[in-house]
């Protein structure tokens, strides 16, 4: 089985995001980048298949700027077999999906696993859009994949249990979580990944227009700074409770 994982490089979750002076983007200077967490789960899920069946081939691809090469290296270090880069600066989600559709057509994977959403813009767009462009079955937010004769069982967590969906191959699923935490790369894995060739091509080589229907960011604002808490001290329990209720009603407006 060949599994392809389109991944996205995003600001690491430990980065404190700041709005850039232009008011329409975030500061990317000097920050740490990493693979979007749901994409990491997708990689782990695919690698668990590979652990179970060594003939499985796991490939990763990303549509992004030069720096996203590091994310591909990380995926290779974790144990993925192949990686390729489609170079694009600021490609819109639909353009990304179109580019990925071309990549899938060439690579002919049996299964495409996407993170259910990227942790930076949280749109959850590319996976379903890619399935639509390919005309493939799509199952969202899966937690487990089990191969079945010519098909796959895709497990979804629901309240109090699981749903098991069966899809013919090829298919696309978006990943909510893997059974295990994404693996920490071994050092030989890191070293091997450093030497591996990552082929790249520009977006237009795939015949995709960067500026495909998209949106314009009008403005970005950081969330308002949290004010300090208030401690009610004076008075007995009853008085304090009264003042608390008043404050919750009049100031916080939650009652």
């Amino acid at each position, binding site marked *: 089985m060949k599994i392809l994982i389109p991944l996205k490089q995003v600001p*690491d*979750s*430990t*980065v*404190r995001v700041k709005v850039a002076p232009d008011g329409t983007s975030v500061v990317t200077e000097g920050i*740490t980048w*990493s693979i979007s967490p749901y994409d990491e789960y997708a990689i782990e899920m695919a690698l668990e298949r590979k652990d179970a069946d060594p003939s499985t081939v796991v490939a990763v691809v990303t549509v992004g700027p030069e720096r996203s090469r590091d994310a591909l290296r990380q995926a290779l270090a974790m144990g993925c077999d192949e990686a390729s880069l489609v170079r694009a600066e600021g490609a819109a989600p639909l353009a990304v999906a179109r580019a990925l559709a071309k990549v899938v057509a060439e690579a002919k994977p049996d299964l495409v696993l996407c993170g259910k959403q990227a942790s930076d813009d949280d749109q959850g767009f590319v996976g379903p859009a890619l399935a639509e462009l390919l005309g493939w079955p799509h199952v969202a937010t899966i937690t487990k994949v089990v191969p079945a004769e010519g098909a796959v069982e895709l497990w979804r967590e629901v309240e109090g249990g699981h749903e098991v969906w069966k899809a013919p191959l090829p298919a696309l699923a978006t990943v909510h979580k893997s059974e*295990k*935490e994404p*693996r*920490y*790369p*071994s*050092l*030989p*894995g*890191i*070293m091997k990944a450093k030497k591996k060739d990552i082929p790249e091509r520009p977006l237009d080589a795939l015949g995709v227009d960067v500026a495909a229907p998209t949106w314009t960011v009008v403005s970005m604002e950081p969330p308002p700074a949290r004010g300090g808490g208030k401690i009610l001290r004076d008075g007995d329990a009853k008085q304090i409770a009264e003042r608390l209720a008043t404050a919750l009603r009049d100031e916080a407006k939650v009652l």
Partner: protein
Amino acid sequence: MIAPTGGGIITGLYAGAAPLLLILTFLGFGAFFLRAWRLYRYMRLGRDEARIDHPWRRVRDELVVYLGQRKLLKRPYYVRGLAHAFIFWGFIVITIGTVDLLVDGIIGFHLPGAGNAVFAWTIDIFAVLVLASIAIALVRRVFFPPPRMHVALDGYVILGMIAILMITLLLFEGAGLAAGNLEKGFTPPPIAGAILRSFVFPGESSAVVFFWSWWTHVVTVLAFAAYLPQSKHLHIVTTLPNVFFRKQTPRGALGLIKDIENQETFGAASIRDFSWKQLLDGYTCTECGRCSDNCPALATGKLLDPQKIVLDIRDQLLRDGPKLLGDAKAETTPPAHYLESKPEELWACTTCAACVEACPVTIEHIDKIVDMRRHLTLMEGSAPPEAQRAMTNIERAGNPWGEPRETRGDWATDLGVPTFAEKPDAEYLYFVGCAASVDRRNQKVARALVKVLRTAGVSFAILASEETCNGDPARRIGNEYLWQMQAQRNIDTFKKYGVRKVIASCPHCFNTIANEYPQLGGNYEVIHALQLVDRLISEGKLKVGRGTAEAVAYHDPCYLGRHNGIYNQPRAVLDAIPGVQRVEIEPHNRERGFCCGAGGGRMWMEENVGQRVNHRRIEQLLAINSGATKVASGCPFCLIMLEEGVGAKGVQDQIRPVDVLELVAGRIEN
């Protein structure tokens, strides 16, 4: 030795004595050397490692640790330690006599001085001391077997042999005296003399007693030699080199993997990846169980047993040795998987060094555990998931908590603490460390230190977001690569600002920067905050005023105490605070201090087997019943663990964990 000289009793009794003795000697020592040679070849399967630095310190260790038996005479082992020392010293004296006896028996030549009364007296007294010590050892084994000691037949065989040697020695000495072999004019030695005068040897029978006791003695000596390398008592021989080749670099420094990017395997993938010295440690283990007695993981019900770690490596060497001698590249089990339970054993270690401290024969347990962890982490990527999370956080955010890198200096903003960029001529770098940077409880300790340093007029600056984790947890989890990256990053930053002197309030930062950064070319004058405060107080630069009178228990952080020998300065600081009465957590204090459970990367791993180490520590603290209302430490991890412990035990109103720095800062006269 009071053995008969030419034409004496042996030849008188048995003409074929010399050739027979020669054959027996040959057989006894032949068996010894055959086995010893095999063990030596197994040992040489290990990795090369130079252990000849600091030759004079090595000689000193031989005198103190080997001849002086220093590491045997430790709390709480004084009686048995002394018993061992007497057996050992007796053994040395008597071995000289034995050599004389064999040489004389075979070629009829006495070693110089062997026949005089001083030597006879010395042997006589030691034979009795050895017998008494054997009695102590037997009584202990039979009636009060130490829980962690491996009491096996082996031990009784050896004790029995030594007892036979001593009794026969006294007998033939006595008989020899009766035959008139002592130099004229000397007083006969007391015990042999008593035997001489007793009813044992009336008249002619002295010759018969001499004959039989002499031969029994000689045959036992040779049997002993043949048996030795088959048993744990090989330590009689191996302790000598094992002490000589012990690590002379700081105890807290783990070994560097050089040129890491170009290696193919990391850590102990095979028994061959241990250094020869690690393998020699296995031959030297006496199975006394002192390491296990003192292990906090074992004490709280974890699978780890430091003695077993050493013995498993020895057993695996003996098992895989023959195969590897045949084919150096033969497939063998990685030591980290020698047993199914092995990884779990290895992950339970807090690297507190209680085992290393307790070992009488200078075995280095931690290095082996970390070598096996390196295999698990670097080769297999199989560190526990929580440890992997901590490593990812260090990699991406520069701290194991995963707090944003750029907020690292936020604790100091309202204090106006300058960064090195703002104050390039600062004398000291205060290396804050992750805990005091991002953990709210420990930020208070950092703030306390700032107040102390300012009061004493110390010129310092911090690195704020340019500082990154020193790498200690990563290295101890086995991730040498991540440690090297973190260390190099700090070293580069230190270089950029020309840092020469470093203050650390965290013993882990202190240990790593002082003892391990030199491996990567980073040499600084590093001082722990409590050492500096001690100095500032004694130089009169810091005046500590009187606050509330209170009793404060001192908890020794492993990386200050056992790893770096800093026991006295933190105590001196406590003693210098008027109104504070220092309390010791006896007997688990100083070199027997009990770990808080957070070292060796354990801070970031789940602890769900047995009792939590920090809860045991709180029980020890409560058991001293000292009326202490605070427990002070000098380590952010200890502080976190103690805080959790008092909370879990519900005693937070009785005893409050603090850092010594907070006690000082709270009483500063402005």
